[in-house]
């Protein structure tokens, strides 16, 4: 049977010229993505969008080049090595099983490629998701998802802002997103950023506005029958003067609005008659998703709270103040943007002053 096996000279007819052709196509593709910004199809509204676009272009250049080779060789080998009419009916292909050198190459090269794309990704990921948390928060805005619209909260504006979301150009922004019903998503394609709005959870987006314009805000998590039209509101990035005028307009409008949200009073809470038993129940409902009754280092989201008021190793709270009942109450009242994440405020957590007194009493019993 051996004589019916094919034998192939070198790598087969036309292999190198065809490889040359594929390489030219691959290089042309890489060149195209090297010189073509994606803002040609989609504007960039914030500074990180440009960095994310660069990563997109790396993936497009490498991915399409790889696909050119895969498609090219699949078609080329299919044509060159097709069975022909004048072949004996039991003709065989070349009987090779493997080639350790080749297999080593195509394990090592993709591994190197994976290391490179990992590096390229981490380089963009780190500033957006990690380093930005320790830069100044800038303008802190909240957006709440509803079925099927967004509302916004600005510092200094009473209650909620409806309609479009306005931001001044050239400023760092911290956008806290959450939801009051089901999961929504806050996506501005021109920002290349998106966070899900999860009820009971505050997700943070940080960016610096970069370009004046009106950009659509789109929901990408299915949220009910009108999900498809939850794209009618805009992010308006405008010069500071225009933003200030808009901001002032809402301040005036909401000052008299009857539907304004309850405001957190700045007065300290009376902690004198807190009930530890009631606090324990509350803790399991409101706190235990993020805090364990365990030593400080046992984090869920926030630190473990066992002995929070009696731990000599941690005399200070994450707010930097000494661990006293009054300072714990302050965090419960006003929330905290700590390095571990966002501690919600009294209003977000729906805690009454009495609830806070009870919680502090309970925490004080943990030793």
């Amino acid at each position, binding site marked *: 049977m051996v004589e019916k*096996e094919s034998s192939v000279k070198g790598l087969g007819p036309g292999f190198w010229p065809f490889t040359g052709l594929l390489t030219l196509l691959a290089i042309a593709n890489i060149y195209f993505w090297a010189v073509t910004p994606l803002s040609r199809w989609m504007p960039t509204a914030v500074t990180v969008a440009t960095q994310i676009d660069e990563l997109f272009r790396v993936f497009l250049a490498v991915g399409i080049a790889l696909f050119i080779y895969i498609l090219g060789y*699949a078609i080329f080998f299919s044509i060159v*090595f097709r069975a022909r009419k004048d072949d004996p009916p039991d003709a065989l292909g070349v009987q*090779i099983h*493997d080639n350790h050198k080749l297999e080593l190459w195509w394990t090592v090269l993709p591994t190197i490629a994976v290391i490179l794309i990992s590096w390229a*990704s981490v380089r963009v*990921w780190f500033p957006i998701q990690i380093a930005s948390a320790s830069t100044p928060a800038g303008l802190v805005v909240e957006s709440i998802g509803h079925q099927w619209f967004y509302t916004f909260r600005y510092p200094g504006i009473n209650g909620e802002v409806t309609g479009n979301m306005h931001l001044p150009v050239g400023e760092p922004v911290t956008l806290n997103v959450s939801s009051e019903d089901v999961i929504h998503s806050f*996506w501005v394609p021109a920002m*290349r950023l998106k966070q899900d709005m999860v009820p009971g959870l505050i997700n943070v987006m940080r960016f610096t506005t970069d370009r004046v314009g009106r950009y659509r805000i789109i929901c990408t998590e299915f949220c009910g029958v009108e999900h498809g039209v939850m794209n009618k509101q805009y992010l308006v990035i405008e010069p500071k003067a225009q933003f200030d005028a808009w901001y002032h307009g809402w301040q005036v409008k909401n000052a008299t609005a009857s539907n304004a949200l309850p405001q957190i009073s700045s007065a300290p809470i009376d902690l004198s008659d807190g009930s530890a038993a009631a606090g324990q129940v509350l803790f399991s409902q409101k706190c235990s998703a993020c805090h364990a009754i365990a030593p400080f280092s046992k984090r869920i989201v926030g630190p473990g709270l066992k002995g929070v008021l009696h731990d000599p190793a941690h005399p200070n709270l994450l707010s930097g103040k000494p661990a006293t009942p009054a300072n714990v109450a302050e965090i419960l009242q006003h929330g905290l943007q700590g390095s571990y994440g966002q501690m919600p405020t009294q209003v977000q957590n729906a805690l009454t002053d009495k609830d806070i007194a009870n919680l502090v009493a309970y925490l004080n019993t943990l030793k």
Partner: protein
Amino acid sequence: MAVAATHVGGGIADHVHPEPQGFIRRYVFSIDHKIIGIQYLITGFIFLVLAGLLAEVIRTQLMNANGGFVSNNTYNEVYSVHGSAMVWLVVIPLMTGAFGNFVMPLQLGARDVAFPWLNMISFWMFPVAGLMLFSSFLMGAPVAGWTEYPPMSLQGEAGTSMWCAAIFLVGISSTLTGMNFMVTILKMRAPGMTLTRMPLFVWAQLATAPLSMVATTALAGALAALFMERQFGVPFFDPTKGGSPLLWQHMFWFYSHPAVYIMILPAFGMISEILPTFARKPIFGYKMIAFSSVTIALAGFMVWAHHMFTSGLAPFMQLPFMLLTFVIAVPTGVKIFSWITTLWGGKIHFTSAMLFAIGFVVLFALGGITGIFLASVPTDLHLHGTYFVVAHFHYVLVGGSLMGIFAGFYYWFPKMSGRMMNETLGKWHFWLFVAGFNGTFLPMHWLGFEGMPRRVAVYDPQFQFWNRVESVSSYVMTFAILLFFVNILVSLRRGKKAGPNPWKARTLEWQIPSPPHYYNFKHVPTVYGLPYDFSEPLPYRGLEDELTDAPAPVPAGAH
């Protein structure tokens, strides 16, 4: 125990049971892995037609930017049931239940799977679960997609609870099948068939089985919790009562990412059988392909949270999931390069099975490449929840899994039925399908990038042109599948007799008559090597009587 093959002194006793005679025992409540495989195949194809029709409702709705073909709510029900049915009632049962059941024991030289009764029970859960899922339309079908994220799924009508029960049931079926296959492959190989002599399709099933066994239990837990919350108000997921919506996402994706590999690994195995057979040369890099299947299966357990980059994971948690996901590119790349090199130097016969296999390699590769965009956190922040994701997983699940199912069907149909498929219709099927498929799903990549979110019944008019291209292409794809079913029906009646080995293939199932006897092998063969050395004599002994009039093995006494 029905058809037990027990190891006796290094060999396997020629121990068989009498063939059941009544129609019910033979074809309905059968315990024969070949009949069960075909039952899975037929049931799976029926659900493919139903879920495919739902897909056409989706595409017809999206012909116009403002919809109008069905109501928004109906549209949401339709795509939710479409996705659920395609995953749990079509691809998973066809990959494991149908092809795994029919082919794997034959390739092992076994007389049946390890637990034939369990196999029958697994099968019968599947059509019942399918009927339950489709019956949810009568009571308000689920609307929150196949992922059913709470709290949205807590608002769904009664059909959502039915969905939980249906998927729970089909999940149990899948878990039991995984267990059954695992034991079969580890304990019932013919003498001489060491692990490294197993055909690659068996390797693929061996890598899939633990995924079905372990991951599906996490899904079962999630479904039970969702059901209890919906029916009895036990607050697992509702944040207003102290539940966590993200808990569901973790449990769901802890299953559903491995499930992606349950849906694709068996196709890898099929392709690894079909390419060498029609290129008339050994598979290139047998050990690398086998090993990479196992690597992918293991790594598949450690990447689930890459579906949750925008959900509100702690940011530092994104890093390991991103990097581990990238790592999967290496074994996947090894497979694709090995398959393409298998074509090199071959004598390639372009049967329909081979066309689908080559098409699989190319389209799956594209689905893999777009996976990189979604695995990287910064680009996923833009692409998550858009049509880019829809494009990506349809390239993997249709360009990959479904093309694999077609390839495997054209390849093994002669063994199942004893007749050949019509090759002309098969080639029309292939080319129309590939054209329609790419027309439907390729534009979704840029639609997603430019701002079209998924799961919308209406959309921005700027996207209407490409959506119309997609809808028209999807009709072409559906027509191609219609040709496929016509081909099956015609070939079953009028197809040329196949004979035992029409493709001159070398795995064990092709060395016995088509369709095989009830007992599979007259004598259990002994295996001396890999099945891919086309220039060598077959590496089996003990098959001399298979194609002769030698008497069938005598059934042992009833147990």
